[in-house]
């Protein structure tokens, strides 16, 4: 009789303990701050914007219809003949030493369906060419397929194991490297991905790495989530 009590307790411990232990030991879906905070936060060196000069605003806040006094700065003048802008040299290689990832980069744009275009080859990673070059102001976006039915796992598959502080290196067209440090990793459902933050063209320089993750939905042949990693420039 005593033995059956022990067996019952043991059975319950097993039944409750197994799922809890499994849940506690699996890797975290997120690391560091949230993606949006990481992108929008000013760099330590950033100077706060000085307050806009306000020359005696009218009480109503409306602009008086009178002829405004002009306080004219020198006017920049340029030739207006059409010029073809020199193309920006694209970055060529991405590497995450801690994850053993090295992948060539392709300049990509927008697919006909409006999503970011990605290289077909899962061993290559796309650089969003309408956004900044890594290192320029704004958020430079690099993204790649996490896997493919024929090609297997992609170069960015280990992205979900990055930790805060991991180093990311991007090699530019001239061979010059920019070095970055991961500040955020987040698993975000695709429907609520903060696209305007991720593709922000202004603000401090950020590197954003994206692939797919979370549960796979076979009916849609797609993952539910995006893995998003944000890195800040290393001095």
């Amino acid at each position, binding site marked *: 009789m005593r033995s059956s009590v022990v067996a019952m307790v043991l059975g319950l411990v097993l*039944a409750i303990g197994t799922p809890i232990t499994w849940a506690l030991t699996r890797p975290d879906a997120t690391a560091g701050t949230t993606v949006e905070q990481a992108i929008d936060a000013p760099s330590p060196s950033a100077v706060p914007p000085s307050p806009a000069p306000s020359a005696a605003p009218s009480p109503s806040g409306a602009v008086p219809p009178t002829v405004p006094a002009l306080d004219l700065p020198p006017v920049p003048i340029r030739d207006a003949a059409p010029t073809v802008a020199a193309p920006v040299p694209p970055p060529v290689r991405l590497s995450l030493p801690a994850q053993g990832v090295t992948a060539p980069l392709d300049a990509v744009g927008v697919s006909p369906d409006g999503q970011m275009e990605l290289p077909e080859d899962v061993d290559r990673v796309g650089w969003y060419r309408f956004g900044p070059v890594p290192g320029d102001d704004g958020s430079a976006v690099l993204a790649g397929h996490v896997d493919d039915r024929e090609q297997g796992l992609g170069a960015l598959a280990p992205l979900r194991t990055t930790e805060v502080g991991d180093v990311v290196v991007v090699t530019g067209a001239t061979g010059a490297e920019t070095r970055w440090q991961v500040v955020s990793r987040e698993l975000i459902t695709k429907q609520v991905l903060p696209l305007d933050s991720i593709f922000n063209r202004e603000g401090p320089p950020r590197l954003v790495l994206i*692939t797919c993750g*979370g549960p796979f939905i076979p009916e849609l042949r797609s993952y539910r989530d995006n893995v998003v990693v944000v890195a800040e420039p290393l001095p």
Partner: protein
Amino acid sequence: MNKTRPIALTAGATGAFALLFAATPALADSHTATVSVLHAIPETPVDVYANGEELIADFMPGTLAGPLTLPGGEYDLTVYPAGADPETAEVAVSLDDVEIPAGADATVVAHLTEAGAPELTPFVNDTSAVPAGEGRLTVRHVAAAPAVDVRAGGEVIIDGLVNPNEESVTVPAGSVSADVVVAGTDTVAIGPADVTVAEGANTIVYAWGSADAGYELATQTVQAGASAPTGVPGGSAGLAADEGMPAPLVGLTVAGLAGAAFAGRKYATSRV
């Protein structure tokens, strides 16, 4: 393809035509406007005065001044031949009470009418957002010439444009070979010239000049609201998926539950 209706306006030395801009894009700064000035009257260097003060000196044809940040309000614009004394010189062209609403992005163009008379025309630059990967191409006819068609890569994208009207289309960003032809014909009037349509921007092309001085293109690029792509795809095989609990662990859990139930039942029956 979206088309914007032009703001037609007659400039007169005496007329006080209050110009209300059709659209006032909401910008962060509620008190200032962004203004550029294009000089598109051939062979005539000028000085431009705003409210009696010299704004641009020795302004050469085919050049663009600005962008200037000016307080919103009404401006009297006067253009004199370059170097002339405004006290005594004859006014080349002027436009009074040009209303520049705060928050607007505008370009004032000094140009010739279809008949060849000097005129000042203010245009509002459309800075509304374009889809990711695309750019807005705006063409403004400010040349002393009849109606024209605009072609990109040999295909007509804007037809029947007359002075001083404008028309806009949204096209994939990139370089296009553009030319201007006499409306309804293949007679090339200007070009072809390579024009870069910037992504997330409004690339404005001006057809200007006269039959005597020749016709040319001028360009201006104004930032429009850039858009983000609608998403990021990223995998089709499920190899990297977060799985549920692995089968052996599920088995262990079930075994524990079964064991507990069996032992509990045995305990209950043994007490009877």
